[in-house]
């Protein structure tokens, strides 16, 4: 009874605060009220409050972040519910919904794991293959890792084998083959799709383009390896709804003068003892070491460490290497790789990573300008 009274008072207090916030609106007042409702476990109410606040202050960062946090919390609630339902009565439909929620949350590894679990329990259902195929196809487009491409193709092929009328799986598969230049493999899938949707203009364009190309040389595995090595596919991906990351799947060209200027600025940072900068396009741009400025020993070490980091990220199925930190009694080494440009900075013993972080960000912003904005920094 005592608890009930307390709840009632808290509710009354929040109602009073809502009236005051409407009377004197400010982003802080709306956000604080939303946070209070969220803390009280009233996620739906909190979302309504934040939406109302966003009507007054549509670009306020705090309110936008809070809305995202509440939406995530709601999705996590759905995850809990779906997991319980799956435990009670496993069903491929529930697995597919759970995988979709993880994808909405941006937790692609978990979505894939759920799909793998579903495959184990329901090997005759095409959906888990489609989920994995779509996730890996997206990863392949942004990272161009051969392993991602192979997993995408294997799973999409399997989905079609189970259900030849799965339009989504067949279209994604055809687009990967077409981008790789595996024309003889893409064409039958495209023709099959055209029988279903003869009015689709995008499909007709793709068929005439792929049909005019030569038959590929080499198998799919070798085409995937070439794409990974060259960091581009011979033909563009054709689908209309590509995101920003996919638009940038081919690394932008880097101006060597800008790169050198940025490198000088990095070396001028007080905490930097040695530096190594290289790009896929230009090779080693600079290697310097204080105080002799010979740079030879750190140059070798940095190049080898970056090479090992790239290889490990790929082999561990983590996508392209983006950044790394190395710490020890010698001090700290900062590693970064973005769009084919990589740097290694050896910092003096007492310097923290934070001391150089903004300089490193400024370096990449300077090198890539606006091209980098909004894209994943980790694109290798």
């Amino acid at each position: 009874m005592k608890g009930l009274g307390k709840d009632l008072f808290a509710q009354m207090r929040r109602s009073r605060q809502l009236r005051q916030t409407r009377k004197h609106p400010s982003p802080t007042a709306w956000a604080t009220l939303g946070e209070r409702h969220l803390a009280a476990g009233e996620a739906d109410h909190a979302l309504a409050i934040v939406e109302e606040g966003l009507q007054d202050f549509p670009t306020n960062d705090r309110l936008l972040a809070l809305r995202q946090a509440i939406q995530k919390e709601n999705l996590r609630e759905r995850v809990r519910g779906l997991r319980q339902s799956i435990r009670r009565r496993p069903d491929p439909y529930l697995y597919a919904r759970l995988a979709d929620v993880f994808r909405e949350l941006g937790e692609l590894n978990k979505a894939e794991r759920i799909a793998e679990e579903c495959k184990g329990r329901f090997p005759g259902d095409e959906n888990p293959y489609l989920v994995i195929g779509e996730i890996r196809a997206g990863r392949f487009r942004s990272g161009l890792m051969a392993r991602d491409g192979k997993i995408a193709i294997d799973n999409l092929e399997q989905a079609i084998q189970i259900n030849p009328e799965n339009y989504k799986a067949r279209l994604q598969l055809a687009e990967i083959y077409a981008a790789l230049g595996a024309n003889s493999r893409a064409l039958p899938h495209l023709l099959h799709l055209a029988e279903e949707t003869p009015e689709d203009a995008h499909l007709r364009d793709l068929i005439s383009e792929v049909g005019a190309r030569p038959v590929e040389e080499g198998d799919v595995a070798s085409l995937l390896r070439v794409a990974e090595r060259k960091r581009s596919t011979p033909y563009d991906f054709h689908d209309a709804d590509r995101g920003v990351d996919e638009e940038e799947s081919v690394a932008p060209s880097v101006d060597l003068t800008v790169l050198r200027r940025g490198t000088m600025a990095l070396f001028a940072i007080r905490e930097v003892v040695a530096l190594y900068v290289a790009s896929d396009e230009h090779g080693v741009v600079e290697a310097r070491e204080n105080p002799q400025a010979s740079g030879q020993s750190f140059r070798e070490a940095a190049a080898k460490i970056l090479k090992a980091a790239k290889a490990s990220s790929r082999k561990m199925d983590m996508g392209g290497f983006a950044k790394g930190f190395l710490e020890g009694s010698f001090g700290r080494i900062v590693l970064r790789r973005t769009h084919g440009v990589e740097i290694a900075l050896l910092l003096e013993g007492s310097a923290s990573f934070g001391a150089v972080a903004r300089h490193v960000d400024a370096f990449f912003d300077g090198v890539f300008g606006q091209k980098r904005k909004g894209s994943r920094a980790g694109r290798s």
Partner: protein
Amino acid sequence: MQDVLDNLNQELGVRGSLVVTEDGVVAAASLLREEDRDLLGALATDISAKVRSALREGGIEGHKRLVLDAEYGRIVLYDLDVAALVVVLDRTINPDATMIEIESAAARIRRVGRFTASANEA
């Protein structure tokens, strides 16, 4: 040692952990997918050896911790002298918050497993 790894896996953002000796033997593991055990162990040993060798060639000794951040994952390799603690982290969390727990787990593993060069020689 297994308890230490199991406890570490309860921390926010930790997706798995293992202890691997410098010759690639997985001494203990707590992973979501048990089939990743040997592959992760081998790859962690490989990168540890390569980084150590590269540093030595560059006249840099005494590396303790390596954090690798890729597009879809993040791993931490904590040097235990003749072994390494490998921790797989969620890409979306702030690793600084979990690093204290990783260091604490590394210290406990050193005590439990006696992973020191002198113990190995003995």
